[in-house]
């Protein structure tokens, strides 16, 4: 399917040998993976595994060694090919910003001056509100919306500029199960309809398993990528964590459980030996 795209099947995102040091700590080490146009990729790792740092590298906000190509070109700030949904988003309910205002800002927030009330702009916003099923609360203040509604608004904000790669940082972290399912289903639909590649980070992979094409698993600053079957295996994850972990299938869910202390392959990584049970369920 990717051969119909203008860049002729080249990856929309190519991350190669990326390393990041923050305050003397190696947060990412030799991370490499690539994402094809329209592909739905899960970026899985526990808290502090470097997911947000990796996003900041891709967005051009974080200095890093190695190369990152977005749509074949080196990464840069304000790349129109990328849409981004941050993990941290909090608005007081009294902030005078309606859903339609925030979605509209997705179109042209980088332009200085005030937005002119053009009919074409309003139509684009209306169309986007429809696409994420947000018309019901289009005129409500964003700060008064539920977590799931806010995620949909943020997704619309990111998508209205027609990016080719959508980055979502832990969009399911603060959602109840049902809202989480809705957001995942919405993303899967948009990704396939509009041929947008999605890179979605999560500390829990199971809600994403039905929709993701590939997985990038981050642990101890290093990454393994491939299909879920290729990556989420005892041998691959044990090598990644630097100690033995078991990958268990329980009722169709995948659990990653740290092995016995005696089975450690590499005792130098104390951060992980201290964790008795690492469950990514």
């Amino acid at each position, binding site marked *: 399917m990717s051969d119909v795209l203008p860049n002729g099947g080249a990856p929309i995102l190519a991350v190669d040998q990326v390393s990041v040091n923050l305050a003397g700590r190696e947060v990412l080490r030799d991370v490499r993976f690539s994402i094809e146009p329209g592909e739905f990729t899960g970026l899985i790792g526990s808290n502090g595994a470097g997911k947000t740092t990796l996003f900041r590298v891709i967005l051009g906000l974080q200095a890093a060694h190695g190369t990152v190509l977005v749509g074949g070109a080196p990464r840069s700030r304000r790349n129109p090919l990328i849409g981004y949904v941050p993990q941290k988003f909090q608005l007081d309910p009294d902030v005078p910003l309606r859903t339609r*205002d925030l979605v509209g800002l997705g179109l042209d927030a*980088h332009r200085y001056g005030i*937005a002119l009330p053009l009919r074409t702009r309003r139509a684009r916003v209306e169309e986007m509100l429809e696409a994420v099923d947000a018309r019901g609360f289009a005129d409500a203040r964003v700060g008064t919306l539920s977590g799931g509604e806010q995620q949909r608004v943020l997704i619309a904000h990111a998508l209205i500029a027609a990016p080719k790669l959508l980055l979502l940082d832990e969009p399911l972290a603060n959602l109840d199960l049902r809202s989480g399912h809705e957001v995942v289903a919405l993303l899967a639909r948009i990704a396939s309809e509009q041929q947008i590649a999605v890179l979605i980070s999560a500390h829990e992979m199971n809600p994403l398993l039905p929709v993701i094409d590939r997985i990038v698993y981050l642990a101890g600053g290093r990454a393994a990528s491939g299909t879920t079957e290729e990556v989420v295996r005892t041998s691959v994850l044990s090598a990644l964590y630097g100690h033995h972990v078991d990958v268990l299938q329980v009722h169709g869910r995948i659990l990653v459980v740290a092995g016995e202390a005696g089975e450690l392959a590499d005792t130098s990584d104390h951060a992980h030996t201290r964790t008795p049970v690492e469950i990514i369920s």
Partner: protein
Amino acid sequence: MSQPLAAIFAPGFFTSQIVQVAATVSAVAAVVCGTVGVFIVIRGQSFAGEALGDISTTGGSGAFLAGAGPLWGFGVAAVAASAVMELIGIQRPRGRDLATGIVLGAGLGLAALFLYLDSVYHNTTGATVSLVFGSMFAITSSSIPAVIAFSALAICLVAALGRPLLLSSVSPELAAARGIPVRLVGAAFLLALAIAVALAAFTIGTILSTALLVGPAATALRMTRSPARAIAAAAAIGIAACWLGIVLSYDSYDWYHQSGKSWPVSFFVVTLIFLGYLLSGLPQRLRRRRASVASDPAPAARLS
């Protein structure tokens, strides 16, 4: 004039040049404060606004000492203080408040010196009071061009910053991801904030300036949902409070015949802004009470 109107507007009100100047200057200042104020409230920079207002006392007293107009003193002090805040503003969540507090302390120290020197060299105690609490009826028409120039500068600055300012105010993360220079936009907004503070200080006094800056905006936020409407409402509330304050102050001249003086305009303006804020919260409170009464089968039981 008809009888009821004459009871509200004392004779000579509309022909008084003092009133006309006060009405013009306060309206222009209210528009700037409404525009800037909405962003102050969204960005949570009320403390910076308050601090810059207090620090403009330093500029005002310095200008008085040097024989310059107070507006220029307010402007120079607020802009200089905001620049220092920005320079030492540490890149930590609470760094901004720390920088504000440090600059506020230093600025007020200078104000103490200048006010002392003012009283030594000019032997006027009234200057301090009019500086700190404002004296709208003492503004001369010659200052109107400067007021309008300052206002135009602040409004053009906020309008030019426009969308990047709005997005970085509601989410620095989203703004940074779009390549918006969040820090630079914040610094430019601080300049607009400093100008608005100078205008508010000129209108209702340095210490009270924060009322005109934050009050109408906070009230507007309770009544509107979109940024443009919030700004329009904040400006309208500010103008209404100032004009009504002028009317009441003018009328108060006749309240005590023996005093031969009117009550300070700033008192009325600030009180009206505060009352407006309280009133704007009423509908929501009533709605909540009605909802809780409706859901409570025995409201009387709660009285015990």
